[in-house]
């Protein structure tokens, strides 16, 4: 096991007296499948408004399980997940690893879906749909079908769909893992620009150290068997972050820290 990294004075632990309102809280959450497979053990996390949190860890560390629990797609075996102010319709947006678009529908119709399921007609919400498309730079492609788009554009459409309800929290499950590096960097930049503009809270699952450091202000490092949180790192670099940050010494230092934590997480399995 690698030695603990030397304490750095410029990385503050997550501030205990954060003034931003709390959005969501996980308390001692366990998830056990089939009675004996412990996918997640004792996970606690509080998400504050405006946070960009990355869940970073090797496969099998329960990061996707945690995301599904927060999304309400499955329920904790033990512990609690609570939306501090209660959860309203459309408070949650989700982006999966695959773009998950309906191939029979145009880009605009795909983005319309969350609103359509609330019974809103396209004419009534056309502006919201177009705004969401504009945010991800797809306004020229509303009538295109998913198969006419590149991988990166499909993912943008998927993000636009998550944004269309103006959610307070967006969950992203390794959304850029399947993309080539150039596209991934572009989408990372665009995601931050977008968050700047609309100020939503993001919980982002990734297994890339670089992505987690570049994007987030908090990194939750997780370990496998059983899936659990082993460390929380704050990335205190100010937003907006650009290529300057990506090539800075600070960035490299944060990456080393996160990487060390990840190695520790992987322990003898690495």
């Amino acid at each position, binding site marked *: 096991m690698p030695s603990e990294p030397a304490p750095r004075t410029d990385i503050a632990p997550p501030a205990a007296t954060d003034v931003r309102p709390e959005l969501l809280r996980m308390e001692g959450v366990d998830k056990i499948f089939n009675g004996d497979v412990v996918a997640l053990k004792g996970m606690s996390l509080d998400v504050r408004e405006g946070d960009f949190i990355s869940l970073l860890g090797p496969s099998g560390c329960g990061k996707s399980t945690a995301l599904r629990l927060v999304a309400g797609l499955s329920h904790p075996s033990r512990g609690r997940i609570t939306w501090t102010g209660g959860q309203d319709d459309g408070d949650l947006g*989700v982006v*999966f690893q695959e773009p*998950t678009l309906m*191939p*029979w529908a145009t880009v605009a119709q795909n983005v319309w879906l969350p609103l359509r*399921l609330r019974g809103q007609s396209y004419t009534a919400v056309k502006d919201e749909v177009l705004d969401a498309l504009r945010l991800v730079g797809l306004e020229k492609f509303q009538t295109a079908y998913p198969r006419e788009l590149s991988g990166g554009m499909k993912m943008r459409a998927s993000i636009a769909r998550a944004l269309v309800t103006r959610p307070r929290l967006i969950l992203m499950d390794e959304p850029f893992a399947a993309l080539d590096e150039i596209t991934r960097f572009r989408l990372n930049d665009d995601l931050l620009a977008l968050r700047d503009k609309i100020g939503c809270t993001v919980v982002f699952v990734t297994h890339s150290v670089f992505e987690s450091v570049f994007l987030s202000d908090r990194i939750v490092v997780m370990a496998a068997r059983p899936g659990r949180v082993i460390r929380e790192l704050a990335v205190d670099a100010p937003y907006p972050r650009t290529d300057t940050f990506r090539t800075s010494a600070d960035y490299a230092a944060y990456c080393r820290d996160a990487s060390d934590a990840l190695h520790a997480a992987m322990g003898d399995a690495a």
Partner: protein
Amino acid sequence: MSLAEREEIADPTIDADELARQRARRLERIGKWTLPVLVMALGLLLWDRVVVWNDIPHYTLPGPWLVFRTLIEDWAILFDALLVTLQITLLALLVAVLGGVGLAVLFTQSRWMEMSFYPYAVILQVTPVVAIAPLIFIYVDNRLAGLLICAWLVAFFPVLSNTTLGLNSADHNLRDLFRIYGATRWQRLRFLQLPSALPYFLGGLRIAGGLSLIGAVVAEYVAGTGGIGSGLAFRILEAGYRLNIPRMFAALILIALTGVLIFAALSLLSHLMLRKWHESAMTRER
């Protein structure tokens, strides 16, 4: 593409392969239509010669010309019969679609329903319709209804099994998304499962189209009563009893043409409904 570009590409040092590929493509395009026509022409010629050279009497094997003439001369009788067969076929197909899709939706909405009734759908399908038909005509007085039931029995299963498969094959992430956004059962069916099932359903429909024709013809053979309102199959039987072999051939040709037309129409429908988004309806470069 402009002429200048075309010339650049036509440069022989880089493009012998591409030229060969183009030639092969062109030949294939022409051959796809001309070859079957040529084979048919050769077949007809051979048929005609065999009949003429061997002095085969027309009540044993009529030549193609005689069959064609019979088709024209008996057109009134045969066309009426065709309409009857076509009516039964299309009605059976319609009922097969309604029944097949309806049952498939029911099955995917309720696992209990599926577990209870699916095995019986399979039993109905694997029992030959010729074996069931006589029973049906005992209990069903209305001849048209009896024919329809027989044709439906044969045709509904591919629609049912394909549509069930399609309804269950909706993307699991999309299912999750629908759950997150609180979709109702009906919304999930309408916006997710039915569109996912469409390509599968259309595949089943094409098979069912051919099968409902087969079902209609077989049922007519079994039903057997003649007179007004009898279809092509009955005309074939009747012509056989009277040794009117040319008319048997003429009716047979009409049945085959009907089958081809139904298949072509359903293929066209499938193409039109899927061309915008489904892989199967796309033409790919290369």
